[in-house]
């Protein structure tokens, strides 16, 4: 018997890729997809596989690298989170027309909830828009099976295939049987075919026609037909589900003792939905309930509206994750049985905050000191939490801190009073989408300050390397890019580095940059200090400075409100208010020594 191992959904995806001969895997980190590439690299190392794995600078680049790999006949894959697919949508739409040579899978992990995303968008709709098939796994086990199915469809019908797991699949763990990993023996051969690989609009028309024909064929592909789990059940009502919602539904229908009564179908391939299946369910049932996340993708393909209940009829909530208790309620209502509405009480815990000792906190504190009333544009990453410190006014999408700063500048530039604009962006995010925006700012001579929060890693998603790290996913050495050189290369004339822990000097630097920007144009500061939880950079961290609160603390709460370090604890009882230090959380960064206006935070002798 093969080994069974406890694997995370994302690790199961990775295992599926290597077991199916994937030769190039690329990604840009993003929750809930981040662990996929790291796990591919793990299996690559563990099994000494000859393949290419890489973190790309963004999802579009990751897509294009993996796509070119499949143009040479290799099996390849690109993985990302759902909003990453927005960035990669340009090559996605075009690659759908051109098709593939070796199998190509686009893995886009959705985040119903959302647990840690800007939107709850449904990647299956992107697959519909691009006109490529999409598979919707219900578990780590099924996600591994679906990698094989996806490569088979991709190569049989000459199309990229999307795999759309959701957070509950990506981040569940399950015992998974490990199968054999073949060494890649495919010939690498790019065959020139300009009417396809470089098609002009006239040829694109033909490619579009061919694409629609492929989709018709895929809608009859037998291995991905919907599963009829309980063929013995007969009723005028049926339930259709997909993804993890199908996993919840199956269990609930059984526990409500409806397994023998209500026909239950699990859709594996929500687009294109099998044409015979559509015909069958519309003919066989009076009422059909569709339970799926996050949009009504299956539902909208079932054309006979008066029979179909789902998101469009408000039988299923349109927003948020479908928890099993919600599904229990939906199913009970559909079949007309009593059900008690159950909920887990919402935790009234602390709001998320930057870690104790986080260098971002120091940068934000300095920015607020230097620029009291500015417009603070920011970006996607841990530092979004600068919100709590009043140092973040906008967060739109990757890289927008810089372009929004430009927009604000242009909007205000003819006004008498122009606010100072300070943009903050992380190092990885700057590489990802900030560079083109900075070029634009230079060309337009936008008067603003950009602070690049360089903590030497992609912290929010679990410390993946950045282009400045000089490391690959297996820890292999790569070229390391210097941010300052890049900034100067964009044409920025003011670019200085600073250590945010040296808060007085850093505040002075921000002031200097603001003064420069008002008269001359864009000024960039690189705020450099390693992420406090990135173990790989322990040796670069400053010496521990023990701090204590003096007896004079009057509990004014200034440090709590403006610095919000989790290691500063606020106490309030009937007769006194004061602040104390949490010795376990405190990292000894010493930044708070400069925070208390009354000087009550002091170095412990």
């Amino acid at each position, binding site marked *: 018997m093969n080994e*069974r*191992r*406890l694997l995370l959904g994302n690790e199961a995806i990775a295992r599926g890729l290597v077991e199916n001969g994937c030769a190039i895997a690329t990604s840009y980190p993003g*929750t*809930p997809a981040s662990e996929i590439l790291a796990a591919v690299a793990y299996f690559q190392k563990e099994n000494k596989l000859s393949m290419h794995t890489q973190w790309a600078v963004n999802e579009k680049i990751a897509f294009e690298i993996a796509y070119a790999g499949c143009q040479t006949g290799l099996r390849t894959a690109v993985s990302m989170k759902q909003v990453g697919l927005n960035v990669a949508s340009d090559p996605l739409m075009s690659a759908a027309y051109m098709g593939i040579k070796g199998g190509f899978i686009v893995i886009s992990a959705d985040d119903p909830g959302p*647990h*840690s995303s800007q939107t709850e968008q449904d990647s299956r709709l992107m697959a519909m828009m691009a006109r490529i098939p999409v598979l919707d796994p*219900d*578990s780590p086990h099924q996600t591994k099976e679906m990698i094989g199915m996806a490569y088979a469809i991709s190569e049989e019908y000459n199309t990229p295939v999307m795999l759309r797991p959701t*957070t*509950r*699949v990506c*981040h*569940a*763990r*399950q*015992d998974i049987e490990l199968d054999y990993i073949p060494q890649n023996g495919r010939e690498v051969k790019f065959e020139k075919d300009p009417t396809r690989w470089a098609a002009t609009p006239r040829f694109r028309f033909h490619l579009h026609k061919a694409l629609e024909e492929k989709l018709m064929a895929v809608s009859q592909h037998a291995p991905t037909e919907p599963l009829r789990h309980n063929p013995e059940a007969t009723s005028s009502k049926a339930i259709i589900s997909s993804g*993890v919602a199908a*996993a*919840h539904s*199956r*269990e*609930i229908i059984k526990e409500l003792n409806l397994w023998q009564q209500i026909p239950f179908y699990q859709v594996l391939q929500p687009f294109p939905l099998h044409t015979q299946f559509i015909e069958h369910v519309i003919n066989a049932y009076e009422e059909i309930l569709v339970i799926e996340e996050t949009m009504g993708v299956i539902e909208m393909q079932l054309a006979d509206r008066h029979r179909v209940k789902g998101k469009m009829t408000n039988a299923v909530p349109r927003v948020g994750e479908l*928890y*099993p*208790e919600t599904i*229990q309620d939906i199913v009970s209502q559909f079949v007309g049985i009593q059900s008690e509405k*159950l*909920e*887990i*009480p919402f*935790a009234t*815990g*602390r709001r*998320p905050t930057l*870690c104790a000792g986080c260098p971002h906190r120091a940068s934000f504190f300095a920015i607020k000191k230097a620029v009291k009333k500015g417009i603070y544009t920011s970006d996607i990453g841990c530092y979004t939490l600068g919100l709590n410190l009043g140092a973040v006014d906008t967060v739109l999408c990757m890289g927008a801190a810089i372009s929004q700063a430009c927009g604000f500048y242009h909007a205000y530039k003819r006004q008498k009073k122009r606010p100072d604009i300070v943009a903050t962006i992380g190092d990885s995010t700057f590489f990802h989408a900030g560079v083109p925006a900075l070029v634009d700012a230079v060309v337009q001579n936008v008067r603003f300050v950009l602070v690049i929060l360089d903590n030497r890693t992609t912290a929010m998603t679990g410390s993946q390397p950045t282009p400045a790290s000089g490391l690959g996913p297996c820890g292999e050495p790569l070229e390391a890019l210097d941010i300052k050189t890049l900034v100067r290369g964009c044409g920025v004339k003011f670019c200085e580095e600073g250590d945010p822990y040296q808060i007085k000097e850093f505040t002075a630097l921000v002031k200097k940059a603001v003064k420069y920007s008002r008269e001359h144009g864009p000024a960039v500061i690189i705020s450099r200090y390693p992420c406090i939880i990135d173990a790989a950079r322990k040796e670069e961290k400053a010496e521990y400075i023990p701090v204590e609160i003096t007896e004079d603390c009057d509990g004014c709460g200034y440090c709590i409100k403006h610095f919000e370090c*989790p290691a500063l604890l606020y106490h309030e009882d009937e007769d006194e208010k004061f602040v104390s230090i949490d010795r376990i*959380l405190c990292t000894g960064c010493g930044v708070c020594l400069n925070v208390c206006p009354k000087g009550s935070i002091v170095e412990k002798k």
Partner: protein
Amino acid sequence: MVEPVRQQIIISGIGGQGVLFVTRLLAEAAIGKGLPVFTSETHGMAQRGGTVLSHLKVGGFSSPLIRPLQANGLLVLKAENVLQHGAFLKSGGWAVVNGRSDAMPQTNISADTIDADTLAQKIANPKSINLIVLGFALAKAEQTPEHQDSLFCSFEDIKAVLESRFSKNKELLDASLKALHAGFSAEGAE
């Protein structure tokens, strides 16, 4: 005929206590016994000091999550979490909670309590609260082996998992086994 194992267990605590480690030990114990297993955790913006919750399902389940009133057992490393996560426990299910019995929040759950924080200090291993509470739960389960909600695994099963995990680190293994045993043989566990 023996009923197939079917158990749903909630493990609750705060970041840094090792909720995920306990979950992993139990899941590996299940695999060791040839049982299918699912675990799910709160991920994302949870961080040190925040609530951590994990769902463990052993047996023939298809969903990775536990619904309210369905858990056979509750393993709670931080007593105040009972207020929130007690809602998962079905009637008649067991609850093992870290905390002094006089410091339990008011709920209708009857829990077995162990002061693992103090015990951990006593054995000079403050990070071993998770293993102490697990050991205590294993002892409680051993007292009611006939109970259908009783834990699916034994002290020996967990010991075997630890031995295999820490086979290359004798020091860590010994410390872990000591903590597990401290909970297993703690007062109130006999």
